[in-house]
């Protein structure tokens, strides 16, 4: 659904751009194509790496680990799995909601969901290639701090 929208919007913009200036549009196409070529050496291992990690950390595995663990240790495990795993939200949200319905704690699920969305261990290679080691690490560290802050707040709010 998302990709249909993005592809249509971009096709539409490319057509308008081409009507206004074929040269500029060709250049735009070349820029897009070149950056795709430059990204491939980072994207291929990332896609395969995510595939391997997800086959080990399947939704079932995640729910069996996060479902029974509680307390501070559960939060740490939630942060750890969330940082390493790579799951689209339409898989992760129902999984988290289901775990909550079956008695898992809010702080542990919050740790998992928040770090899953913001910390990207599997995409770190690509991020470093774009922004350099230091910036990429600081951003991911900030995301980890943000997730911990959220856990702290929700722990205070709900317990």
């Amino acid at each position, binding site marked *: 659904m*998302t*990709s249909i*929208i*993005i*592809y249509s919007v*971009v096709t539409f*913009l*490319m057509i308008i*751009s081409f009507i206004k200036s074929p040269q*500029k*549009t060709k*250049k*735009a*196409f*070349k*820029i*897009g194509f*070149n*950056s*795709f070529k*430059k*990204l491939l*050496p980072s*994207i*291929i*291992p*990332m*896609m*395969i790496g*995510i*595939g*391997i990690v997800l*086959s080990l950390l*399947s939704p079932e595995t995640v729910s069996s680990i996060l479902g029974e663990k509680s307390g501070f240790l559960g939060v740490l495990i939630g942060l750890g799995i969330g940082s390493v795993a790579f799951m689209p*939200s*339409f898989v992760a*949200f129902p999984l*988290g909601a289901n775990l*909550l319905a079956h008695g898992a704690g809010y702080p542990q699920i*919050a740790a998992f*969901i*928040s770090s899953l969305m*913001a910390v*990207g261990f599997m*995409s770190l290679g*690509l*991020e470093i290639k*774009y*922004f*350099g080691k230091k*910036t990429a690490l600081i*951003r991911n560290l*900030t*995301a980890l*701090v*943000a997730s911990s*802050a959220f856990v702290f*707040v*929700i722990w205070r*709010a709900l317990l």
Partner: protein
Amino acid sequence: MNSNIIIFTKKYKWAILTILILTVINMTLPSLGTNANQLTLSNFLTMFGVLPPILLLIGLLDVWVPKEIMIKYMGENSGIKGLVIAFLLGSFAAGPLYAAFPVAAILLKKRARLSYVMFFLGVWSTAKLPMVMFEYTSFGGLFTVLHITTNLTVFLIGALLIEKMLTAESKEAVYQSASALSE
């Protein structure tokens, strides 16, 4: 000929390594391997669903949006305006976080302020509008509101601090490497 192979191998060393690992998994643990193959395939499909059009969009941005415009709206001295634009760009986004990197890179290439670009990445990761709706229906209002407010607060502080932590040279290096990937 030989040196071409060496260059190729060097460039794709991580790709080759992960393919090898996947092959070993397939040979030793076939059921896990099948699962990993399917997930890898679906990752590639997702990636092809978002990345090529985003890169084309970036090409269009590059040729049509002059640097001066970007500096005016998101540059060093754009003030609160730049922050608001970073927020809007991030929240109207769609796609996984890695799709945000090329967008962030073109913003940097056009000399948007590093702090705002980092904040944009934070918003993209946590507060994309479609995902906020979905989060609300999955976890309820309190969870979603607390998630977004605490995360965005920390992202904002982190984004402003990152400029203090980097020296002028390493900041320039970030601009250079981001620009080099969007040409």
